[in-house]
Structure formats: C-alpha cells, structure tokens
C-alpha cells in the first residue's frame, strides 16, 4: 500500500520550480538535478535508470 500515486497531477514543471526557488537549500538540489540531466543528455547516464 501507499504507492507513489497522487490523485492530483503535481506537474513536472511545478515540481522543479520547488527545487529551484528554495534559496540556498535548493541550489544543491537544482544543481544536481540539472547535472544528472546533462549527463543523461550527453549519454553518460541512461535516462531511465531511476525506476525504484
């Protein structure tokens, strides 16, 4: 039980905003998020290695 679904679509863009605007605490998260995206983009990391 307690799957990860939500009845309301949180919106991908809306989730990223929250990682970007949180001041100092957010810088590391946003940086890492985009770094991982970048690695995925240049092919070093496969895009969907994240199923959990």
């Amino acid at each position: 039980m307690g799957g990860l679904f939500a009845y309301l679509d949180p919106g991908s863009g809306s989730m990223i905003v929250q990682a970007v605007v949180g001041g100092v605490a957010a810088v590391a998260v946003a940086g890492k998020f985009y770094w991982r995206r970048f690695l995925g983009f240049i092919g070093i990391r496969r895009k969907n290695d994240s199923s959990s």
Partner: protein
Amino acid sequence: MEPRVERGSFRDPDSRVFYAGGSVHRALSERGLADWEALAETALFRDKVAEGKLVGTEQLPEPNGLPAELDAERVAAVLRHDRVPVVSYPYEWPFGMLRDAALLELELLLAALDENLILKDASPYNVQWRGTRPVFVDVGSFERLREGEPWAGYRQFCTLLLYPLMLQAFKNVPFQPWLRGSLEGIEPAEMRRLLSFRDRFRRGVLTNVVLHAKLEARYADREVKQDLKKAGFRTELIRVNARKLRKLVQRLEWKPGRTAWSTYRTTNPYDEPDAAAKLDFVREAAGARHRRLVWDLGCNDGRFTRVAAMDADYTVAVDADAAVVEALYRELRADGVDTILPLVGNLADPSPGLGWRGEERRPLVARGRPDLTLALALIHHVALTSNVPIRDFLDWLAELQTELVIEFPTRDDPMVQRLLARKGPGANPDYDTETFERALNERWRVERRDTLPSGTRILYRASPSA
C-alpha cells in the same frame, strides 16, 4: 432521506463526502484511513479543531449507511464532520477572503509538515466559512509525508489562489469571473501572458509565474519526480517555499478604486431620516421571531444586515460590488462576527451550477433557502439596470418561499430618476408603484407597509401567501 454523495467530491478516490441523516460524512479507503489515523493522533488536529480552523471530525464505529453509488468494499471507515452553515465558493468571495483562505492553507501545510504529514492539494474549495472565520473542511487532504517528493498541491495553490490574488492586487482585475469561468483557475502560461514586463519584477512573479510557466512548457511530457528525489529533494524545501509563499500572500493588497457603491452611503440623496426609519422597520421585522437563515440581497455596507442578523442563526449578505463586500468582510472580521457571511454576487447573473454534470458547484439557492429575505434598495437596480421584469423578479423571490422585507423606490425617487434618465423617456413602463403592489399582493400576504420620510420609498413586509 436516502444518503447521497456530494457531487463535488469525486476527485480524490481515497476520500468521498456524502450526506446521511442531516450530517456530513466522509468515506475513506484503506489508504485514506491510514492517513486519517496518522492525522487524528497529532497535536495539530486537536489544536486546529479547537481553534476552529479545522472542521470538527470523528470516526464512526462502523462504516454503515453508505450511499448506493459508493462501493462498500472499498470503504474502510466513515468519518462524520461538523457542518458549516452555508457553503460558499471562491468566486463568491472578496479579495480578503481568498487571501485568508490561502493563508489558512499555508498555515495548515506548515503545521502538517511538523507532524510528518502534508496536504495533498491546495484547493480553496476546501476552505469554508463560519461567518468571517475560515475553516478547512477537507480532512482527507492530509496524508502521510513521503520524503523526497515536492508538494503536489503547489501548482493548484498557484492556479486557484496565488494567481487570482496577484491578478487583483497587481492589475485591479477582479478574480471572481476567472474562477467562475474555470474551476481549475488560471494556468501558469496564461498568468504569465496577463502580466506586463514591469510586473515580472514584482515579488514572487519571476519564480512562481515566469519560471513556473517556462518549466511547465519544457517538462510537459517528462517525469521528474524520481530524478528530483535522487538529486536530494528534501521536505525542508517545501517548508522554505511555504514560508516564502506565506510572506508573499501576506503582502498582496487590493486597493479598490472608487466604485459606484463604495461611495454610495456618503453621496446618496435620501439618507438619514429614511435610514433611521428603515432600521426600525427591519428591526421589527427581523425581531418578530427567530430565523434559521436570513438573506440580505444588495447588502451594501451591511448596516441593515447586522440588524437582521441579530435574531437569526446565520445571515448571508450578498452584493454585486466586491469593494463593499471587501469592506464589510474586514469590518465583520474585526468585530469577530461569525454569524454573517459576506459574499460577492449579482442577482441578475447568480452563481450557476458548475463542473462535472453542472453539479460539482451548486447555485446559491441549492445551498440553503432563507426564511427571511431583505431586498432593500435593490429592485430598481434589478429592474432598471438589468431590465428584469418586476413580476419575474417577484416570482423568483416567491419560489424561495421566504418572508420578505422589500423596499420599492417609486418613479419619483432621485435614484430611480437618475437610472431612468440614462434610458430616455418612457423606459421600463412596468416600473411603477401600482404595478409593483398588484404583483406583490398576488404572490404574498403584505403585513406592513410604510412610506419612508422622503416620500419616494416604500417598505413592505410580506409572508408567503400559500
């Protein structure tokens, strides 16, 4: 009466509202029950209910008495909620009420985070009112926190609360027609287009609007939740954002311009002797016996509302001018009045049924019929400005089966003359005292008739004739 499902409560399958035996119930799924149990044992729940900010709720011993349309197999428990006197919707609230609803959502979100809980949405429809005191009614919105996930309600907070408030605060554009036009509110991309270049530099706009719209467009088809988790997203970020949003919302102010109504009391021609006689008339009519629900249609500054409310359980005060309703809300809140609900509404264009099947949000009449209705200094606006035929207007009132206190300004009244002058001679021939009285007598039993000192306004007190 058969139990029936609340039509506005189908979106969250873990928590469905229904009515049975005169009370409000909530059917919970297994998951909903686990969330409720987590909430019920917190200090947050106890304190916020005691403060009146969260609706009083108890779990029933057995999940019985379900409406037929709910699948009993999926119902793990049933809760019973305290009722709010009259349900209202964000598109009927003035600016200050929407802002206070937003602040209550944020207060509860922050309190929930401290208890390892979170709000799964941020709908202003989850906030209702006891007079001017907001109360959060959707206990099913609380769920157990999942570490590493952003707040799922943030987007809804923007579209239904933050953007409408910004629209009115920055542009002096009333948000009510927008919220009535779409139950989802204003989308990030739409909001960005509504704001000027200069507006982008106002507090909170660059992030909550511009960046939000951009990221939404860019990541429309991409799943990012897991990536954010892996990048180290923490609950602390939700807390930081909620605090920022709170500060932002607190600073949003609406300064209404001079509307026709908000200056009405100081400039209208008849005034004091008439007003005093009118107050006595209303006091007598309202004091005749105790009423459950009173409507004051065209309440203006609420002077007569307060008198009418003294002998009633609850009073709904409606006016088409959001500026006077805003002023009334602030006054009533400052005075701690919790038996008068001020709402923005135009009788000639009242709140319709909206949403799925047109039943998710209901017309005002369907949310509680009044047993006394005041219609003071109203009929000439309905009949002359909106051209509603007098007989039609009285028919509508008669259908409510309500006692009535109604004021008729005659054709000689300065305000009536002003309204007629704009339209040219011979306009609205049905607007005269004789026609009005004949129509009134056909539908009601008139119990009292007083001409006010000005001689151009007549007050009637009437009961349904059936």
